[in-house]
C-alpha cells in the first residue's frame, strides 16, 4: 500500500514537469511503434517511385490524443518504407471546418470523412479539388472490402473515398451477471427480445426499467434516436427499401417508414419500458447519450441500444467482456435467418494528385494497415471492414465481436442513414423531429410529414 502514494506523487510531478517544460514535443513521437509486430512488405510501394522527403497532410475529426495517436503510430511502417512524412491534423469541428477549408482553397491532402453524405457534397461542390482514388487503392478495395463499402465511397459513379474505419451500431448493451441471475438467455429474435422486456417490466421495482436511452448530444441532439429508427427500418423493411428511403425515393412519411418509427416507439415511448434509472419517457430527450447506459451498472436498467464505440463510455474499472461487467448482444431481427447490421465508418478522400498521396491511399486500403492499426490501438474502439484483418490484432473483445458481425457472410450491412441523407435532413430535421417525437410526444405521422417536407428539392 505504501507504494501507491509515492507513485502518485512521482506521476504527478512528472506530468507537471512535462506540461510546463518549454521543450516542444516532437511531432515524430513514435511511442507506439513497439506495439507493432506485424511485418510489412515495402516492395508494394515501389510502383509509386521515390517518395522520400514528401509530405502527406491528413485532416480528420479525430483530435483527442488517445484516439489520434493510434492513427499516427499506424503510419510509421509506411513512413519507414517510403520516406513520406504523414502529418496528422485533428479538428473536432471537422464537419464545419472542412467545407470552409475547401471553399478557401486550403484543402488538406487527405480528409477523413465520417459521413459519406458530407463527402458527396464536398465532391460535388469542389469537383476541381478532389482526386479520384488511384488504381492500386481501388484494386485493394475490390479485393479486400465488401461491395457495400465501395459503394459508400463512390460519388456519382466515381470512387472518391477509401474506407478507413468502421463501427457497428446494432448492439444492445447489457450486464451479463444480471441476465444470468434472472435466467435470461441472449435473445435471438425480436419476439424473444420483447418477451424478456415484458418480463423485466413486470418484475421491475422503483426506478428500474428494462431499457434506458439518451439522445442529448449538444447541437447533434437526436442522433441516437435516428439510429434506433434506422435499425428498425432494417428490421421492418427490405434493404432495398432502406436504400430508397435514404435517397427519398421512398418518402419519409411512407407507411413503411411509419411502421419502423412506431417499432422504435414500441420501446422508446412505452412508459413501462423506459427510462431505467433516469425517469420517464421525456428524460430520453435530456439524458446525455454519453451517460445514458450507465444505469445498467447500478442495476436500474437492463438494456441500452448503442454502437460499439460506446465501450469507451463505461468508465474506468468497468470490464467490457462477455464475462465482465457489461457486454453487448446483436440487436436481433424478426427471425434468426435475417442479419441486418447498421454501421458507420470513415472514408479518406484525396485533394492532391500526387504519387505520395496515392501511395498513402494504397497503404490505407491494404490489409497491412488494418492489422497494424489494430495493434497500435491498445484501448480499442477501432476496427475496419477489411476482410483480411485478423481479429486477433484487435485488442478489445467488443471490437472483435463487431468484426465478426461485419465479416459474417449472412450480414446485410447498411450505412447509418442519417449520414447519407442531405445534411438538411440527416443532420437537421431528422434529429430535431425525433427529439420532439420523444420530448413533446409528437405523433409519428406528424414527425414523418415534417421531415418529408424538409427534404431539399434538389
Amino acid at each position, binding site marked *: 500500500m505504501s507504494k501507491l502514494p509515492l507513485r502518485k506523487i512521482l506521476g504527478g510531478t512528472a506530468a507537471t514537469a512535462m*506540461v510546463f517544460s518549454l521543450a516542444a514535443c516532437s511531432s515524430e513521437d513514435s511511442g507506439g511503434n513497439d506495439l507493432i509486430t506485424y511485418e510489412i512488405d515495402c516492395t508494394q510501394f515501389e510502383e509509386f517511385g521515390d517518395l522520400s522527403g514528401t509530405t502527406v497532410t491528413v485532416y480528420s*475529426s479525430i483530435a483527442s490524443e488517445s484516439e489520434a495517436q493510434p492513427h499516427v503510430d499506424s503510419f510509421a511502417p509506411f513512413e519507414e518504407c517510403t520516406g513520406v512524412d504523414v502529418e496528422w491534423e485533428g479538428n473536432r469541428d471537422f464537419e464545419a471546418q472542412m467545407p470552409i477549408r475547401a471553399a478557401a*482553397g486550403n484543402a488538406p491532402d487527405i480528409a477523413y470523412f465520417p459521413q459519406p453524405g458530407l463527402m458527396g457534397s464536398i465532391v460535388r461542390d469542389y469537383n476541381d479539388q478532389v482526386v479520384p482514388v488511384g488504381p492500386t487503392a481501388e484494386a485493394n478495395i475490390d479485393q479486400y472490402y465488401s461491395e457495400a463499402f465501395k459503394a459508400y465511397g463512390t460519388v456519382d459513379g466515381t470512387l472518391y473515398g477509401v474506407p478507413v474505419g468502421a463501427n457497428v451500431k446494432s448492439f444492445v448493451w447489457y450486464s451479463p451477471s444480471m441476465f444470468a441471475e434472472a435466467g435470461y438467455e441472449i435473445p435471438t429474435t425480436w419476439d424473444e427480445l420483447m418477451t424478456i422486456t415484458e418480463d423485466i417490466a413486470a418484475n421491475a421495482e422503483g426506478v428500474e426499467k428494462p431499457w434506458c436511452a439518451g439522445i442529448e448530444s449538444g447541437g447533434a441532439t437526436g442522433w441516437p434516436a435516428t439510429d434506433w429508427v434506422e435499425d428498425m427500418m432494417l428490421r421492418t423493411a427490405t434493404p432495398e427499401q432502406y436504400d430508397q428511403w435514404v435517397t427519398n425515393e421512398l418518402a419519409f412519411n411512407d407507411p413503411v417508414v411509419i411502421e419502423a418509427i412506431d417499432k422504435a416507439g414500441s420501446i422508446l415511448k412505452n412508459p413501462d419500458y423506459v427510462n431505467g434509472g433516469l425517469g420517464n419517457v421525456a428524460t430520453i430527450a435530456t439524458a446525455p447519450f454519453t451517460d445514458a447506459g450507465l444505469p445498467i451498472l447500478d442495476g436500474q436498467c437492463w438494456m441500452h441500444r448503442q454502437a460499439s*464505440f460506446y465501450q469507451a*463510455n463505461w468508465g474506468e474499472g468497468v470490464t467490457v467482456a462477455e464475462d465482465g461487467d457489461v457486454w453487448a448482444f446483436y440487436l436481433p431481427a424478426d427471425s434468426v435467418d435475417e442479419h441486418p447490421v447498421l454501421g458507420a465508418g470513415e472514408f479518406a478522400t484525396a485533394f492532391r494528385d500526387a504519387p505520395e498521396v496515392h501511395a498513402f491511399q494504397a497503404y490505407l486500403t491494404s490489409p497491412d494497415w488494418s492489422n497494424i492499426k489494430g495493434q497500435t490501438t491498445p484501448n480499442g474502439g477501432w476496427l475496419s471492414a477489411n476482410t483480411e484483418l485478423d481479429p486477433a490484432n484487435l485488442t478489445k473483445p467488443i471490437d472483435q465481436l463487431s468484426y465478426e458481425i461485419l465479416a459474417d457472410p449472412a450480414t446485410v450491412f447498411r450505412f447509418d442513414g442519417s449520414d447519407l441523407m442531405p445534411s438538411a435532413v440527416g443532420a437537421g430535421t431528422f434529429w430535431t423531429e425525433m427529439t420532439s417525437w420523444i420530448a413533446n410526444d409528437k405523433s409519428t405521422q406528424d414527425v414523418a410529414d415534417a421531415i418529408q417536407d424538409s427534404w431539399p428539392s434538389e
Partner: protein
Amino acid sequence: MSATAPAMPRKLTRKEQRAVDNKTKLTSPTASVIAIIIAIVWTTPTAGLLITSFRPASEIRTTGWWTVFSNPDFTTENYSDALGTSGLGQSFINSIVITIPAVIIPILLALLAAYAFAWIPFKGRDILFTAVFALQVVPIQVTLIPLLTQYVNVGLDGTLWVLWLSHSMFALPLAIFLLHNFMKEIPASLIEAARVDGAGHVRIFFTVLLPLLVPAIASFGIFQFLWVWNDLLVAMVFASNDYAPVTRKIAEMVGSFGSAWHLLAAGAFISMLVPVIVFLALQRYFVRGMLAGGVKG
C-alpha cells in the same frame, strides 16, 4: 491630477468629500442586498464548475455537483488526466504567443486612429468614424471564408500572422470607438494649450494624451486579452495544429464520442488560470478605466 482644485473654502477636500459620499452610497442596505444576490447568482455556476472539477468521473456522470454537500468525495484525478494530455504545455505557450500580439497590435493601431478621429479635423471624418463604428455590427462568422481565402491567396495560411491579424481586425472597430470616446472626454483646452505652446501631434499624443489614457488602454487590453485567450472559433478556423491554443486542446480532450467529457471542468479551470491572474493584477486599472468613461471633464 487633483492639484487644480478650485480655491473655494470648505471643510473637506474634494477627495474626502467623494469618499464620504461613496461610503453612504455603498452602505445603503438595499444596494448591499442586491449586490450580494448578484454576487451569489454570478458565482454559483463557477463554484459548481470548480466542485465538479474535483469530483470523480463516475460521480460527475451520474449526479449533480450539489450532492457533494451530502456525499463529499473529491479527487485530483481529473487535473492529473487533463494536465497529462501531451502538448498541453505547448498549447499554453501557443495561447500566450497568440494573445500578446493580438492585444498589442489593435491597441497600437486603435490609439493612432482614435487620435485622428478625435483631434485631427479632416474631410469625411464623421462618415469614416460612423463606418468604423458600424463595422462592429458585422458578425465575425460571415468573414471567416473570405478571410481564409485571402490568407491562402497571399500565402499567409498556417502562420501565426493569420491569428494575429484576424484577432486585430475583429477587435479594431470596438477599440477605435472606445479609445476615441476616452480621448474626446479630455478637455479640448488641454490640447489647445499644448498647441499654443508649440506642440505638434506627436508631442500632444505622447506627453499630453497618453498618460491620461493608461486606464482606458488597460481596460481595453483586459477585454481583448480575455476575448483572445478564451477564443475557440478563430482558433478552430485559422490555427494550424502546431499553433492550436489551449482552448482548442481542451475542447479536443473529450474525444470523438464525448467519452471523456468529465475532464472539461478541470480543463476549463486550467485554462482560466492565466486570465484570472491577469485580471487580478490589472483590476485596479480596469475599475479606473470604467470610471474614466463615466466622469465628464
